[in-house]
C-alpha cells in the first residue's frame, strides 16, 4: 500500500490492468458444503483469491472461563497458507492475521443470534489457500455463507467488498497490484437486508468526497455479491429438484 511507483495502473482507455472498468468486480464463485466433517462449509474464488471456510458449532465453549452466561461468541480464525503468496509466508498467527481474525469475529457476531446459545462458541476457520488482495472481505463473505449452510440462526447474511484509490481515481475491488501501488484501500462489510455496517477499515488516505464515492460503490456492489451468496446456497437444493425431471 502506498509504495511509490511509476507502474501504470490504467491503460489509455481508462481500463485497469486486468481490463476492468473502475466500477467492475472480479469474478466471484461460491460453493457450499464442500467439507463433510464440518457443520457447514464454503469455498470462495474471488478473482485470484481461493479461500476455504469451515464452521463448527454452536458448541460448548472451552476453556470454561471463556464461557459467557448470556450469549455465545464467534471465534473466527483467519489463516494464510505458507504457499498463498508469492514469497513464502512464515506459517502461524502473526500480527496481521490476528487483527483480521478479530475484526471478522466481531462482524459475524453482529449477524449471528448469539443470545440463543449461552455458554457456547461458534468456530469459523478461514484458510486462505491463494491470496490476491481483499482476502479479509472474501473470507468474511464466505464465512457468512458457511454459517447459513451450517443452520446457525442469523439476523442476516454478511457481505463485504473493498474500494480504494488508484492513481487518484476511486475504484472498486482492488487487485493485488492496485492494492500494492495504490493510495488507499477501504474494506467494508454490511448486512445487506438492514444495510448496517459491520466492518470498516481504511488504509491510506481518502478525502471525504472520495470516501463517499467509494462507499456508495461498495454498497451497490454488495447487492450483487449478496445475490451470488444466495445463489450458491440455493444451488444444492435446486439441483435435487431437477434430478426428477421437474
Amino acid at each position, binding site marked *: 500500500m502506498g509504495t511509490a511507483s511509476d507502474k501504470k495502473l490504467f491503460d489509455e482507455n481508462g481500463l485497469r490492468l486486468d481490463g476492468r472498468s473502475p466500477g467492475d468486480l472480479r469474478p466471484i464463485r461460491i460453493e457450499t458444503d464442500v467439507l463433510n466433517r464440518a457443520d457447514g462449509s464454503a469455498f470462495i474464488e474471488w478473482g485470484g483469491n481461493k479461500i476455504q471456510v469451515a464452521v463448527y458449532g454452536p458448541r460448548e465453549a472451552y476453556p470454561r472461563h471463556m464461557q459467557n452466561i448470556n450469549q455465545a461468541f464467534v471465534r473466527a480464525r483467519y489463516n494464510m497458507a505458507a504457499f498463498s503468496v508469492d514469497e513464502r509466508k512464515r506459517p502461524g498467527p502473526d500480527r496481521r492475521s490476528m487483527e483480521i481474525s478479530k475484526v471478522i469475529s466481531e462482524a459475524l457476531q453482529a449477524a449471528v443470534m448469539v443470545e440463543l446459545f449461552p455458554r457456547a462458541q461458534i468456530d469459523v476457520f478461514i484458510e486462505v489457500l491463494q491470496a490476491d488482495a481483499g482476502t479479509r472481505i472474501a473470507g468474511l463473505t464466505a464465512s457468512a455463507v458457511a454459517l447459513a449452510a451450517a443452520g446457525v*440462526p442469523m439476523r442476516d447474511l454478511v457481505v463485504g467488498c473493498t474500494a480504494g484509490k488508484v492513481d487518484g481515481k476511486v475504484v472498486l475491488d482492488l487487485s493485488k497490484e492496485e492494492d500494492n501501488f495504490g493510495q488507499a484501500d477501504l474494506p467494508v462489510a454490511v448486512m445487506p437486508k438492514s444495510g448496517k455496517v459491520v466492518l470498516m477499515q481504511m488504509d491510506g488516505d481518502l478525502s471525504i468526497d472520495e470516501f463517499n464515492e467509494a462507499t456508495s460503490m461498495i454498497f451497490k456492489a454488495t447487492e450483487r455479491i449478496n445475490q451470488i451468496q444466495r445463489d450458491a446456497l440455493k444451488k444444492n437444493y435446486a439441483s435435487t429438484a431437477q434430478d*426428477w425431471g421437474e
Partner: protein
Amino acid sequence: MSNVKQIVMPGDPVEVPNLKPRNGVYKCGDNKYCSQFFGILQESEQFVDVVPFTGKYVPRRNDKVIGKVIEIGPSMWIVDISSTYTTLLHMNDAPWRVTSGELKRYMNVGDYVYAKVLSINEIKESWITMKDVGLKKLEGGTLVSIPAPKVPRIIGKGGSMVNMIKDSTHTRIMVGQNGVIWLDGAPENVIVAIGAIRKVEEEAHTVGLTDRVKKYLEDKKGEIVGNSE
C-alpha cells in the same frame, strides 16, 4: 420447481397472508418478521414456520432422544445428544436402583440410551430421564444420524413414513428427536431401511416424498429377507 417449497435465507421477510409466523423467525421491525435460518417456508393451518435445512438439535421438554454416554460422574451420566450442550442423566432417573459411585455397573461410556428430556433451564443445562414406558438402554442394533430439523419428515404425518419403512423392511426402528435413529433387524433389511432414511434426508425439502420412498421400497423388495409372500 413447483415441487420444492419456497427457500428463504437469513434476514428474508416472512410474509404469508392470513398466517402467523411462528418458529424460526425473529422480529425485524414493527409487525415484520424475518427468517433466522437458511431453510424452507412450511405452512400449516394457522402458522408459517421456517424449517432450517440442517442445524443442531435444540432440546425441548418431553422430547424422546437417543444419546451416547460420554462421561460418568459420581451420581450422573453425562450424555451427548448431538445438541450444542451435553445433557445429564441422574442416577435417580435411571430405571435401576443405582447407588452413588456404582454407575459404571449399569451403563458405561459409549453406551446408548433412549431417554426423555426432563427439564431445561435458562442457561441451557438439561436433564434427561429413563423413567417412562419404552425408555431404555439400547442393546445391539445400528445407529444412523440425520440433521435434527429433518426428523419430522422421517416420522411423517402421524408416523406414516417411519411405519412404512418399518413394515416393508421388517426392521425395528426408533427415532430420537435429536436425529439419531436406531435400527435392528436382518442386516440386509437394515441396509434397505437406511437407504430409505438417506433418501428422506436428501429430499426432505420436497413435496410428494412419501410416494417416492414407497417406490424406492418396492424397488428394493427383492433384497428384503423374511418376506412372507
